[in-house]
């Protein structure tokens, strides 16, 4: 079965490369709409990596929430705030070069630490299935679960109030 | 009424039509469309499409006498007639040129009403589509000519009524001629009696 695992590893590395490229594209593309699409591709890549780690539930939730809802929300925002013919203003400000240097420095420090510490090699027992996650959510993490739901409700109402038209009389188009 | 029932009733109607379309007769919910080229709808007698010129027996003696009434009456002015002249320039009672532009004609049938000589009638033939508008759809005299039998075939009652009227007119004309002839002979006979006393001799000698 050796070649199969090799195939899976190669697949994972490929997905990593694609999502890295997509991330770079989403950061550097001038047209904001294309940047959002590139981010969607990057997030799909990350969902692929979750699948590689046998965390299917997380992968599917990631696709559902991120690619399904957040990117759609971003595109809605882009449509509402962008003139049909987007003006050709420079997409990046002047800090480009300096920030690149700092970022590269940070990355090299991180890599050095990662390489030096001894990480456990083998993966542990079978991956947690959906039911174990459910038990855990309702078990030890039930408090965090309730807090998250409160936060989400607050955000829901907050976002609506901010984005709504100023005069309550008029219904939003 | 529960919220969804109006929609359900509507759906039942289409489902009924879906089911009945398989076995019901055309006007009770069955298939009422006709697959045109293979099967055709029965042709109505009074249906009028583009006009045609009528001739009795052979294409030579066509009824049209080039009187130009239909050309004047035609609303969109799509008829063009040129009278025929024989060798020494005397006008004949025949059209040399009789063109109808079928792209202009709106088959309203007014030429048929206005023609005093029963020469032009509306046809039933409607499959005359062609690629070329100018040449093919400008019908000349010979393309328009159709026989009286054809007229009887497509419009039996009208044709027989018209033929009856024409025969009557024929007899009346013959009778009138006969009467005129008789009257004319009678007048000669009367004139002859008024003159017999003086020249009996030459008549007897010749």
């Amino acid at each position, binding site marked *: 079965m050796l070649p199969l695992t090799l195939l899976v590893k190669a697949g994972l590395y490929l997905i990593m490369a694609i999502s890295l490229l997509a991330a770079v594209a989403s950061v550097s593309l001038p047209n904001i709409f294309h940047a959002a699409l590139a981010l969607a591709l990057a997030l799909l890549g990350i969902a692929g990596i979750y699948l590689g780690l046998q965390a299917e539930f997380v992968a599917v939730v990631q696709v559902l929430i991120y690619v399904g809802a957040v990117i759609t929300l971003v595109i809605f925002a882009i449509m509402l705030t962008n003139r049909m013919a987007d003006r050709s203003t420079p997409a990046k400000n002047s800090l480009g070069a300096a920030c690149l240097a700092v970022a590269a420095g940070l990355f090299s420090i991180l890599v050095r630490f990662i390489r030096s510490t001894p990480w456990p090699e083998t993966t542990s027992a079978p991956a947690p299935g959906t039911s174990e996650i459910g038990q855990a959510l309702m078990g030890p993490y039930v408090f965090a679960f309730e807090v998250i739901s409160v936060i989400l409700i607050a955000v829901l109402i907050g976002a609506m109030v901010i984005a709504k*038209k100023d005069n309550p009389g008029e219904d939003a188009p | 009424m529960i919220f969804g029932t109006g929609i359900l009733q509507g759906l*039942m109607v289409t489902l009924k039509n879906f089911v009945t379309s398989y076995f019901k007769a055309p006007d009770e919910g069955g298939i009422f469309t006709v697959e045109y080229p293979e099967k055709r709808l029965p042709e*109505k007698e*009074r249906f009028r499409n583009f006009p045609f010129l009528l001739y009795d027996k052979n294409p030579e003696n066509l009824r049209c006498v080039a009187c130009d009434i239909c050309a004047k009456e035609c609303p969109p002015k799509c008829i063009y007639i040129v009278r025929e002249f024989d060798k020494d320039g005397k006008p004949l009672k025949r059209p040399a040129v009789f063109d109808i532009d079928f792209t202009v004609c*709106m088959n309203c049938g007014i030429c048929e009403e206005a023609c005093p000589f029963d020469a032009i009638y509306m046809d039933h033939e409607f499959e005359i589509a062609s690629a070329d508008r100018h040449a093919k759809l400008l019908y000349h005299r010979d393309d328009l000519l159709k026989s009286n039998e054809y007229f009887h075939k497509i419009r039996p009652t009208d044709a027989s009524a018209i033929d009856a009227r024409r025969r009557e007119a024929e007899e009346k004309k013959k009778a009138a001629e006969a009467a005129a002839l008789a009257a004319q002979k009678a007048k000669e006979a009367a004139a002859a009696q008024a003159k017999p006393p003086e020249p009996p001799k030459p008549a007897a000698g010749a």
Partner: protein
Amino acid sequence: MTEKTFSLHGAGDMDTQTLEINIGPQHPSTHGVFRMNVVLDGETIVSLKPVMGYLHRNHEQIAENMSYTGSMPYTDRLDYFNSMSNNFGYAMAVEKLANIEVPERAHYIRIIMAELTRLVNHVSVIGFLLNDLGAFFTPVLYAFREREKILDIFEEVAGARMMCNYLRFGGVKYDLSPEVLARIAGILKKFPKFLEEFETLLTKNEILCMRCQNVGVLPAELAVSASVTGPMLRASGVNYDIRKADNYSLYERFKFRVPLGQKGDVYDRYYVRILEMRESLKILEQAVKEIPAGDIMSKKMVPFLKSPRNFKPPVGEAYARVEAPKGELGYYVVSDGTAQPWRYHVRAPSFINLTILEDLCIGQKVADAIIILGSVDIVLGELDR
């Protein structure tokens, strides 16, 4: 007319972009070549300018150098859905001008034909309104199934399905044979069953009610001041039907009622048309039963059948109006004694009913503008003339 402007939020600066789009002349649901220049704010309509004239064929000018009978086939092409009632109006105008007296049987035949065209028109209009609403051609095809039967009768009687050119001044061109009358009676027996099925499919359909009720409301005084006529006016509750108001031809002999709506929205205009079809059926039953024998052409006018050219009505002018399925269809004919009318004008109901389209559509959504146009029921042939 109060200029109802839709107040834009904020002092005048457009917060969200207003979108200006052209609906038509090349558009799937404008009933012919008709353009609406619509300014949208999101989905709501801010302003709507109808643009017409794409189908203008100069009908009134052509009629001025044509014999009176010659322009009869052109009236078929005004409102090509009901050519018989167009002929009816024109024939009555010239008869009033030359005071020609029409025999009774011809009156009955004219009324039968006019009411049959009313059935055809209302059924097709409802079908097309449902098409604009999105029902995928099913109501239209049910409507056209009934329309085919009536058009076959027209073809048998007048010679053509839609361009009948059947009426002449002083009567009608051909007579109604007994079996045609029997076939009309057969249709009248089956039509209520079809109307029943049509109503169960549509009237109580929740989506239709959701889409059509309280949309494009036409208040009665706006309708009267804009001289709107026909089912649109009666849907707003104004009791004005020319068949009852003028009692032209022999309409006072027939017992029928005039349905009136209350709110005047798209739903009322739809349902008033269905009730009107029921009333027309009553008229047709009475007419087919009581049609008297007799000749179909007034003696005075028979010679002119043969030679339309030398029919010269006396100098003068006449205006006759008919309750066409779309509204009051009027013909104004001025004669100077020659064989050609000096002036000829058609009062087209579609054109007059369309003037209030903007008032109905402002503030509604794009989807509503399309169905409001559908409920106004315009035909471009008559509108542009």
